[in-house]
């Protein structure tokens, strides 16, 4: 046979499977693999190792499966937010009543929607309109009406008027 045909080439190439690494190579391969893994781990920064551990932990918990309930998780979050807001605004209610009873500290209606992380009482005090002092209020009332003198709602005298 003068030329190699496809079949012979195939047979020749199959002989390459007899090329084998030194004896014991495959037995030591796993040991070498573990050694390299440890070396790699030592070279890695601490934060990456921590991240890896966290990922492993999350994977074991099967977190992706838990995310199939996003609505429940969102609802829980919203409820928690509302409750915390209510608890935080709770002490404000008696203050409002007191403020309404005292015109000097009444706040405008649009302030009701505003809220801050600061104390609600302080917020009312600083955001309220300028307070009219009680003496100013009395002075204005006096200017509007003529002075009247009533002594204990009792007439000055029950005697009949002099007739001349």
């Amino acid at each position, binding site marked *: 046979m003068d030329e*190699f045909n496809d079949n*012979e*080439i195939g047979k020749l*190439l*199959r002989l*390459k499977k007899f090329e084998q690494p030194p004896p014991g190579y*495959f037995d030591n391969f796993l040991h070498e*693999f573990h050694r390299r893994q440890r070396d790699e781990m030592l070279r890695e920064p601490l934060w990456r190792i921590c991240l890896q551990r966290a990922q492993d932990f999350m994977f*074991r918990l099967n977190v992706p499966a838990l995310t199939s309930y996003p609505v429940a998780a969102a609802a829980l979050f919203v409820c928690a937010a509302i409750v915390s807001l209510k608890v935080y605004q709770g002490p404000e209610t008696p203050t409002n009543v007191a403020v309404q009873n005292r015109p000097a500290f009444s706040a405008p209606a649009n302030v009701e929607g505003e809220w801050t992380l600061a104390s609600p009482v302080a917020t009312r005090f600083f955001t309220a309109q300028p307070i009219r002092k009680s003496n100013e209020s009395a002075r204005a009332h006096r200017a509007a009406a003529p002075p009247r003198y009533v002594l204990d709602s009792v007439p000055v005298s029950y005697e009949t008027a002099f007739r001349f």
Partner: protein
Amino acid sequence: MDQPRTDEDQQLVARTQSGDAAAFDQLVVKYTPRLYGLVYNMTSNHEDTNDLLQDVFSKAYKAIRGFRGKSSFYTWIHSIAVNMTLNFLKKRGRRYHLSLDDVDASIQNDKEFLELTATSSPVREADLSELQKRLNEAMMKLSDEHRAVVTMFHIQGMPHAEISKILRVSEGTVRSRLFYANRQLQNYLDEFRKNPVA
């Protein structure tokens, strides 16, 4: 070549994914000889093969959590090995030297070897080491992609369909590459036949 039982692999993969490193060790032990043959016949260098194989298993271990079982573990690990080897060969370029393993003595009893030495004058005339050297030289003259196909088909005995899955090309492309590679190898080995001592 018989493919390993995939259900056994699936169990080992599942155990590895749940944090059992010993299960991955079993996969390493199981696939090292097979992958060694693949990478070695693509690089023709024992030291490069050893380094690449370590990197292949290291990468597989890091990526195994993302393995969803769409293909078999066998196909998946072979894909990693072939791609990493092709990338390595591109970087290495033509700067290489052959570092060949010894031919196992059992070849003397191999049926195909006996047939070849009985019928083919070039093989009969050449001694084993010379034949090995010629074959590897011929292989190294092929492009990396062609060598990968030849290695998987002729040496590893994989079917065309499996090779196409590993390389992510069509079966037609695999057959075409194989045909072209066979022609090239035939030409190189004919030169050897005409001038065996060159």
